[in-house]
């Protein structure tokens, strides 16, 4: 995107404040355009002849620096690329890395269906929502077109996740595509040998295509050639070397390609990038005793390229110890850094609390708040949660830094009028704030119970400690 402020966007809008977009002013619409929360099409006047020239120019100026490519259809469709910045603090990264997990065409049917189910059903609660993974890659290990097509068919029956069809053999890809041509799978991959066949397939089936070459001149050539043949839904694979100098070079390639696309404005290479952390398994081998080491190394490669510019990646380990941190890192890096760190302080009701229900205390650091809130509500504990203003800092740091102290508890009790709702005058403070308990009792006159150090242990803590004598 070449525009830096809503005012700059506004200059290209009709400026009539006609409200057809649903916003009160063109300026409000302009700022939502910048945030990609509205689309140009929502401003019909812009397509009238009078404004058409401006509209066309604006579309060009608003286009992301890295092309946005979509795989899959419907609710499960995922956007890749579409990025405008090299560092998330410069604005935000828009489309989180698409996490793809593999199956292969030599798997037995039951084994295959089971693995697909595991991938698609996996979920993990995090900051107010359930994290899931995104897509399934089907590898042609057999090299047989029919076997591959059969496998693709089975996977497609089992799930509506977007698919990546993987083989360097165009015939195999084509047979597979016939099964799922209406589902907009990504095909993998054209290289310097097979590219003509892949170009033909991509054109005929209108599906996004991966181009593979660790030689960046060749990769750029392939991209320019496909683009000039009218194919723009391209994903680039500069190769993922799992170890040693190869890994250093891979890191370098990802950074330089993205830099050429965003900073240097080289449109010929400004496409989404794919990484294959799965190559870690080729070094460590598939034997059971090496699986843990391989899954660790795969996660390490994933870590590198989640941060440095992979828009989609293919992984093998579906063990929880891999899935949880890898998916969490994606959530962390692709969170909008402009999102507030803190939530509004106040007294929250969880479930249907009465005046005898427990009063838990936490800080207004968003992560802490959402964690505590979900731990209490998921375990169906009717209670009050007093969210104290710690200037958006977590419990442990706020106690060390003085943002959370006996006075802040007192202020919260008073300003939220807690005594109107909680009659037992007993509060449960976080275990990490234990050192404040004595002083808080002195300052507030309330009884202070020290809760567990982790709110996940509140249910167990309740069994032993609630209700206390002060309440019953």
């Amino acid at each position: 995107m070449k525009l830096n402020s809503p005012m700059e966007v506004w200059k290209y809008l009709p400026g009539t404040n006609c409200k057809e977009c649903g916003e009160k002013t063109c300026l409000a619409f302009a700022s939502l355009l910048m945030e990609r929360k509205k689309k140009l099409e929502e401003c019909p006047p812009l397509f009238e002849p009078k404004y058409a020239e401006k509209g066309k120019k604006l579309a060009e100026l608003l286009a992301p620096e890295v092309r946005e490519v979509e795989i899959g259809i419907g609710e499960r469709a995922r956007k890749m690329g579409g990025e405008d910045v090299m560092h998330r603090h410069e604005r935000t990264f828009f489309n989180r890395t698409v996490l793809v997990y593999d199956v292969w065409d030599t798997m037995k049917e039951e084994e295959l269906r089971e693995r697909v189910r595991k991938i698609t059903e996996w979920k993990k609660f995090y900051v107010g929502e359930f994290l899931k993974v995104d897509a399934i890659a089907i590898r042609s290990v057999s090299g047989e077109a029919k076997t591959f097509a059969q496998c693709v068919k089975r996977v497609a029956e089992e799930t509506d996740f977007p698919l990546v069809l993987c083989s360097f053999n165009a015939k195999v890809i084509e047979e597979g595509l016939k099964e799922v041509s209406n589902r907009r799978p990504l095909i993998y991959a054209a290289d310097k040998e097979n590219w003509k066949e892949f170009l033909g397939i991509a054109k005929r089936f209108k599906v996004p295509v991966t181009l593979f070459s660790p030689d960046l001149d060749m990769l750029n050539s392939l991209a320019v050639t496909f683009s000039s043949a009218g194919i723009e839904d391209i994903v680039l694979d500069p190769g993922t070397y799992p170890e040693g100098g190869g890994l250093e070079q891979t890191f370098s390639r990802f950074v330089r390609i993205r830099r050429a696309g965003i900073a240097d404005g080289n449109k010929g290479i400004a496409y989404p990038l794919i990484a294959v952390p799965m190559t870690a398994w080729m070094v460590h081998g598939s034997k059971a005793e090496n699986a843990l080491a391989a899954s660790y190394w795969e996660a390490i490669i994933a870590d590198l390229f989640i941060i440095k510019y992979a828009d989609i990646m293919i992984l093998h380990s579906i063990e929880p110890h891999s899935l949880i941190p890898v998916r969490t890192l994606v959530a962390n890096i692709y969170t909008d850094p402009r999102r507030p760190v803190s939530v509004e302080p106040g007294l929250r009701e969880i479930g249907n609390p009465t005046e005898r229900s427990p009063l838990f205390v936490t800080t207004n650091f968003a992560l802490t708040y959402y964690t505590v809130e979900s731990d209490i509500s998921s375990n169906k504990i009717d209670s009050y949660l007093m969210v104290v203003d710690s200037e958006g800092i977590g419990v442990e740091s706020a106690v060390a830094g003085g943002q959370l102290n006996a006075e802040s508890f007192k202020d919260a009790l008073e300003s939220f009028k807690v005594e109107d709702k909680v009659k037992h005058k007993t509060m449960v403070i976080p275990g990490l704030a234990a050192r404040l308990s004595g002083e808080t009792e002195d300052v507030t006159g309330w009884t202070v119970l020290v809760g567990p150090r982790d709110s996940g242990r509140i249910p167990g803590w309740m069994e032993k400690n609630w209700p206390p004598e002060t309440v019953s």
Partner: protein
Amino acid sequence: MEKKITLEDIARILDRYDVVELEDVKIKGDVELELSTGVAIPPSVVQALQSMMGVQKEGISVVSEEKGIEELELIPTKFEVAKTEWNGQIEEVTIGATSADGGTREATVTIGGEKALPFYNFDHQTPHPPVISVDCFDMPISLAKAVREHYEDVMEDPGEWAKKNVREFGADMVTIHLISTDPTIKDTPAREAAKTVEEVLQAVKVPIVIGGSGNPDKDPEVLEAAAEVAEGERCLIASANLNMDYERIAKAALEHGHVILSWTQLDINAQKTLNRYLFKLGVPREDIVIDPTTAALGYGLDYAFTNIERMRISALKGDTDLAFPISCGITNAWGAREAWMKDSPIKEDSDWGPSVYRGPLYEIMTGLTLGIAGGDMFMMMHPKAAGAVKRVTQMLFGAKEAEDEGKKVRIEDWVTWK
């Protein structure tokens, strides 16, 4: 807007493909190009023209039919990208002193000196690989199961603990945390804590980090006593922060020849302020390392990552208040419940699997992520995690001794891997 293309441009392109003459070509105005059917020019030239003129779907198409594709040729392209040159450079800081410099360490550790973002060797070679300092404590502490099993035999003896960190876990440095000095824990007197520091200095020959308990009232006297007994060893004193008598700690470090860790909490401006206070107290630039705070994966790592990345970029752009090597307390990763808790407290979650597998990966990924943001030094705890972060950062640094198994792998074969 369409790109304008001049006759000169066309001539240049044709020249590049050794086309001497074009027949049956009419050029009208300055953007339109019409080709009569059956023109004998290579498809690649047509493609190149199209590409330069931004013509795609409509207009001339040589690939609307399969036959057209057969005739296509790759458009030769050279991938080029600009180097990024920065004005600033990170301070180079050496921790530890050998006998030549009045200490008793067998080796020293140097960090910092960067002129580019971490591992952007294509801009400027990263001067030093990141270093790892493995934690030990002055009393037995509660640890996650996965960590505890490695230290159970040495927890009562900080000297033995430090030795194990170096001998068995390959630590570049050792951090001794004097947590028992906290008045709410054991309130160990400063003088006694200083003896522990002496013990650790005797036990190992690597440079050491001396950490307090984090109690802002007690730390100044504890670290002062520690700095005194460690005179000449050029330890890293951890740490000075704005909520305590940092002046006393800084003066002790200065007087006894140590490096000081300047610690702030996820706040660039606070970091600049504290560093400026240290300058005012006369602390030389080469005696400062900063700790902008580490948050665990899933528990604020995004803030820590961006905070460090922003500081490093500001420093490279020339902000000398921030141009210092960065230390990260990666052991904080174990604060994430996913690192140690047996099962998920959230009933709807998929199974979490064994916690002993999750924990080390939380530590590894927290460390590596902050390494990519700008971390120069990692304080860590789980031996496998420390080893893995060391190994991958060595590779990214470009160490010659880093094994190169990767080269033996034909990477595109992942597709058919069994």
